[in-house]
């Protein structure tokens, strides 16, 4: 375990330090006093664990291929951008465009997430990315979603608060969304439908919920108090009939 005090450090210096350490074989790094440094874990492919105390900057773990990052704090925009593998555990909120075009790995957010979370998330062969949100999500959740799993638990919502914003699943053409709570039809993109859960869904959910509870010390009974809805796209060719040949 190596500790790096990031206060006042420029991101390029900090990231170089992290890359160096990991390439030297350090398995666990703790970054303290992080505030706003971008690109932490960018392109990382090593089996290493980074613990971040503070607020990392944008594009945390972008293009990451496989490592573990645990953030004690909130994360900013663009976390897990085009990520291909690894695990991110966020003990706070995440901002906009979390998991854009994410193709692999898992992101667990204890609290809320911003706009466009999981936009254009993809699955491919055995790569099945997942984002688990403990609180609520903003508008355009899972927009263009093409694969993977998105779970929103809606824990701690006020009685009249929505679990997701508007345009949930707009343009969705793959993957599956599990929402623990009600969603009004007008909140959904016209490409998605609500269906009931199968046994297989329950099994899948169980795995992620187990992790969520473990990471954040949440009681499973609390989650089990409310049922899940499952959202899937009508088809994988949402814009198939939009054009006419000239």
């Amino acid at each position, binding site marked *: 375990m190596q500790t790096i005090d990031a206060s006042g450090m420029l991101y390029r210096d900090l990231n170089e330090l992290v890359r160096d350490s990991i390439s030297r074989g350090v398995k666990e790094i703790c970054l303290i006093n992080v505030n706003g440094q971008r690109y932490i874990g960018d392109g990382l492919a090593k089996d290493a664990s980074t613990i971040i105390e503070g607020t990392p900057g*944008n594009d945390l773990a972008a293009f990451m291929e496989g490592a573990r990052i645990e953030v004690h704090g*909130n994360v900013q*925009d663009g976390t897990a951008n085009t990520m291909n593998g690894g695990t991110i555990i966020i003990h706070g909120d995440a901002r906009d465009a979390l998991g854009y075009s994410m193709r692999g790995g898992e992101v667990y957010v204890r609290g809320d997430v911003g706009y466009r979370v999981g936009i254009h998330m993809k699955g491919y062969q055995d790569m099945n990315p997942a984002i688990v949100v403990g609180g609520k999500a903003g508008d355009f959740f899972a927009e263009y979603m093409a694969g993977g799993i998105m779970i929103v638990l809606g824990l701690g919502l006020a009685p009249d608060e929505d679990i997701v914003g508007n345009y949930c699943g707009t343009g969705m053409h793959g993957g599956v969304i599990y929402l623990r709570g009600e969603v009004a039809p007008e909140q959904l993109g016209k490409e998605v439908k609500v269906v009931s859960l199968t046994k297989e869904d329950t099994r899948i959910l169980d795995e992620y919920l187990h992790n969520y509870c473990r990471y954040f010390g949440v009681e499973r009974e609390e989650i089990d108090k409310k049922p899940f809805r499952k959202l899937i796209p009508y088809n994988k060719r949402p814009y198939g009939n939009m054009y006419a040949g000239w």
Partner: protein
Amino acid sequence: MLREGQIRIPSGCAISGIMNKKGRVFGGGDIINSIAVMHDRSNGLGGGFAAYGIYPEFKEEYAFHFFFDHTAIKNEIEALLKKNFIIASGEAIPVRKSNSIKDAPLIWRYFVRPKHRVLVKQEVDEEEFVVRFVMRVNSEIDGAYIFSSGKNMGAFKGVGYPEDIGEFYRLEEYSGYIWTAHGRFPTNTPGWWGGAHPFTLLDCSVVHNGEISSYDANRRQLEMYGYKCVLQTDTEVVAYIFDYLMRKQGLPLDVIVKAMASPFWHEIDRMNKKEKEILRAIRVVYGGFLVNGPFSILIGTNQGMIALNDRIKLRPSIAATKGDYLYVASEEAAIRQVCSKPEHMWMPRGGEPVIGLLETSQPTCVPVRTEQEKIAINS
């Protein structure tokens, strides 16, 4: 080389704002630290600040901040000022020499009050007179530019990274109850100080992030009502829209934000009859003021601070409160830098404003709201 006013220069940005809702003043160090964290959001070609409550000794005078290209024009302007205003004080704004700030113009400030007989002669109220004066100087007089014109507030801006601009202007020596800041990423280098944010008109200041795609629709709408969008910047347009809707049309703040970032028609369709009627009317009448494209703006006035995003939230913003303080910024880190443990932190939704009003203020145009709403609607 064309500069703002001669050519339209889109830019991206970082913004940050801090206010104390009790009106208690604090130094400019925090806002500099806050904006500095977002260094990478700007490219060194513009930075600026607006501060409210900094000139208590001249709170009844309009504080004109000028850029002069040379002394001759300064003399010319001073003559013009004397003709129209009573000048309570005039001085060079104190600056700190710095390697990172180059090609600074002459920077002066004057605390002025319009001469009564001039107002009578022109049959306009004081504010309108000031506005017209500012417009006239900025559009007609080469080599002079008024970049701040409100009472008990001031804008400080220039070409450079915002933290360097803050140091240059020695902002840590000022105390204000609202501070907004801007780091600019213009898509070219005018190298002109006037092009930086904030943009101000009277006590209204705007810092802005994003590019307004509806710019020319908004501009031409405004120019119908006598505004001259001399800078061709988004920020200017936002400031004028705000000025027009608030000052001239007398609309309440919530209506103004609905005009600028109106809900979608299908959202309006789902509203109750009364709401629907109002929203429909706002969109129909003020369609020319719908601000389209990505933006997040921070508007400062003597009465408070408003943050607003475009309706699909294409630009980031984060808000937080702690005690009497309200914080809004493009990135959370900018808030954490000056307030490590906020009590409440949230992501405003697209089109939903964060409104922070002074508890002491008695705004003329803003309807009285509950205590909660005064700090932040939809927080």
